[in-house]
């Protein structure tokens, strides 16, 4: 039975949500044993495999010991012991800084930040400028200019600044991101754009359970530090057939998950389910949409998007994060450079608004299926 299933398209069913049930087909894989899993279970499986296959790997963060607030780390401490799977004190800069140190000594550190909204103290650990020491003769003071930060200033520059003598490639930072219906300012953010501006790290965002397991294993094993954002809305909602074995999905390779001819849509994470609905509706009106899951935002697969836009002549990008300075702007600028003469219409961005993520107003803030559908039509009719 499992082998029969393996030959067919894998279907992602998202039941009982405000947008109705959705289906996203993923590419069929080899006929292996599969199990119907939700997103947090798929991630949990990936973590089990990661710890099992590398004895020098660790999983830690706030509350991971009892399974984590989203249950992604269930069973790990019991199975691998508290020396490898443990709670940390409540301190994001410490979590990431400590993780960098572990990784620099040749270990794999898979750290959890409880909500992407709380990643900012650790953002600092993303980069360190060498402090410069100056002596001010007028006041006879030594002035130390410089600042510490973990992800940007440390992790991202570890290999480069040392001339490749050192690296912290074994670091993977996982964080739940995105809207959840009632998360407000501090449980709904999509901060991917900040990290996409930092050379030296990778940014990966899966769209479904099967993708998450494969991408997470790739991220953990990638020899560069990776920030892995998990769409929290899909932790329980998304259920998919997930192969039980150890498999990896390559980074920096986008996937055309729906073929079409009239317009290219690019997205990532939970937003793809919304975009898929818009594509289905557009098809009823005779518009053929090509939908691409970017998967890795940094470094991103320009070639796949470029090839698609050269075919369709139109591009629409959609993300929950605020439109101004969002990652859609980078995609738009790049495609403009590469496909200018092939474009039939301006690049469209259907994104979150330029406000803090509001509670009561969330439905108005979000890039809905109908906002996307309207933008598809106006782009096609430009």
């Amino acid at each position, binding site marked *: 039975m499992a082998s029969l299933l393996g030959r067919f398209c894998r279907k992602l069913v998202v039941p009982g949500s405000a947008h109705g049930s959705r289906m996203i087909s993923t590419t069929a894989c080899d006929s292996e044993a599969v199990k119907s899993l939700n997103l947090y279970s798929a991630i949990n499986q990936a973590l089990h495999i990661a710890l099992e296959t590398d004895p020098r790997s660790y999983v830690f963060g706030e509350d991971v010991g009892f399974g984590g607030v989203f249950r992604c780390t269930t069973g790990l401490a019991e199975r691998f012991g508290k020396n490898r799977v443990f709670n940390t004190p409540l301190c994001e800069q410490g979590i990431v800084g400590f993780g960098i140190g572990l990784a620099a000594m040749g270990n794999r550190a898979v750290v959890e930040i409880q909500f992407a909204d709380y990643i900012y103290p650790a953002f600092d650990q993303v980069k360190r400028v060498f402090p410069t020491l100056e002596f001010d003769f007028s006041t006879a003071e030594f002035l130390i200019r410089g600042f510490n930060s973990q992800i940007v200033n440390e992790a991202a520059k570890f290999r480069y600044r040392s001339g490749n003598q050192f690296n912290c490639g074994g670091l993977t930072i996982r964080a739940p991101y995105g809207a959840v219906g009632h998360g407000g300012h501090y449980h709904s953010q999509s901060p991917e754009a900040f990290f996409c501006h930092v050379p030296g790290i990778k940014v990966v965002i899966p769209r479904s359970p099967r993708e998450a397991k494969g991408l997470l294993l790739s991220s953990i094993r990638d020899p560069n530090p990776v920030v892995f954002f998990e769409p929290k809305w899909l932790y329980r909602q998304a259920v998919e057939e997930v192969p039980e074995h150890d498999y990896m999905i390559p980074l920096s390779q986008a996937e055309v998950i729906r073929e079409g001819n009239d317009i290219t849509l690019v997205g990532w994470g939970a937003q793809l389910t919304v975009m898929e609905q818009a594509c289905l509706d557009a098809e009823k009106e005779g518009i053929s949409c090509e939908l691409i899951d970017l998967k890795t935002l940094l470094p991103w697969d320009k070639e796949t998007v470029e090839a698609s836009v050269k075919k369709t002549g139109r591009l629409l990008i959609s993300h929950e994060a605020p439109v101004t300075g969002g990652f859609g702007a980078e995609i738009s600028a790049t495609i403009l450079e590469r496909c200018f003469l092939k474009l039939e219409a301006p690049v469209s961005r259907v994104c979150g608004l330029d406000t803090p993520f509001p509670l*009561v107003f969330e439905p108005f803030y979000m890039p809905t299926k109908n906002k996307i559908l309207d933008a598809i039509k106006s782009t096609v009719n430009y």
Partner: protein
Amino acid sequence: MAQHLKSSKSTFLNVLRHSLAFGSPSHASRHLRQKLPHGGPPSIKKVSPNPLTRLCNTMVDTLSSSHEDTNSQVMDFPGGKVSFTPEIHFISESNEERVPCYRVLDDNGQQLPNSQFVPVSKEIAVKMYSDMVTLQMMDNIFYEAQRQGRLSFYATAYGEEAINIASAAALSPDDVIFPQYREPGVLLWRGFTLQEFANQCFGNKSDYGKGRQMPVHYGSNKLNYFTVSATIATQLPNAVGAAYSLKMDGKDACAVTFFGDGGSSEGDFHAAMNFAAVMEAPVLFICRNNGWAISTPTSDQFRSDGVVVKGRAYGIRSIRVDGNDALAMYSAVHEAREMAIREHRPILIEALTYRVGHHSTSDDSTRYRSADEIEWWNKARNPLSRFRTWVESNGWWSDEAESDLRSRIKKEMLEAIRVAEKTEKPNLNHMFSDVYDVPPLNLREQELLVRQAIKSHPQDYPSDVPL
């Protein structure tokens, strides 16, 4: 030429002397200057282990014609005098005894013999107890409302009612509060009504936060209570800055900030404590050490003797209090406030307590701690019953007063929820206001686009948000 050289030399001397004292802002170096002998650094007989100091001192001796007597067992390193010891001795990681915990009432609410405390009047005591009951009942009813699906989220303060109310009672209305999220009792004491709490929880148009945040994210500028943000410990450095402002304005007021045992692990705790000490800011750091940060017990949070011992590391006066003892909390905060304002200094108060409730409605704490443990703290160490015993022992309370209060609060709460639930949500334009003081062009454009989308697809949008 000679003139020029001479002035260069004295400038250079001053530079050396100044750099020895590690020149710094006036409020900090005042301490240093007092420690330095009059006239400049001493010429020393013992050679300093610090090469830089050695160099400077040698040059000062050579260039300067004055010599000072000196105590050869003491050396002026940057930061002041320190005596030497020939013994190699590491300061222990902990004291032999844990810092004792100040309390006034025993577990049964009986006043301990020889207890020192700030007396409270009947009026204050009755208001304190009544507000503790009100807080507990408000929590009960809102929690149930969330379970019934009427609220999206809630977080209770069970077990911490004494910390909430007694600390508020000991403060003045002008003291500015920077809460974490488990201190609504401070607002309650100051006069925030049950209706106002309900309005925020339901995110209706009467919510001062204009429906933008999750429930329990209260704020009131009128009551000097800064709006809650869910991020942990970010309010701590803010409180220090606010305290400095109060000092500069010469106000008879301090800043007060609350945080949990988990919050003391954040980098912002370190930053805030250090700034508070250096800036001599009148701020109270009140730590609710309730034993748990979601599922993380304090043994996974730190290895110090709790939070109180961290004060000394920053040069901050500290006290450990029984957080479930309303009288002890009241006294500690009262005294701390006075010191903070009069002496321009921060104070750290570690209130030991227990988080009886779950972290929030998104948590089930029986997954990581025993139901027996929770029940024990709820019954045997309950702050309400302890204080009630004391209040009653003064003849200021009775069963009748209790049942009157409870039935009144219940009625008020149910009415507040009924009204809050049916009050309409804030107008859509409040999604765009207050991002800046005035909406910039991009937001005005986006509002137009959103309104167009609503016209085209009204079914996508909630009908209770007025346009």
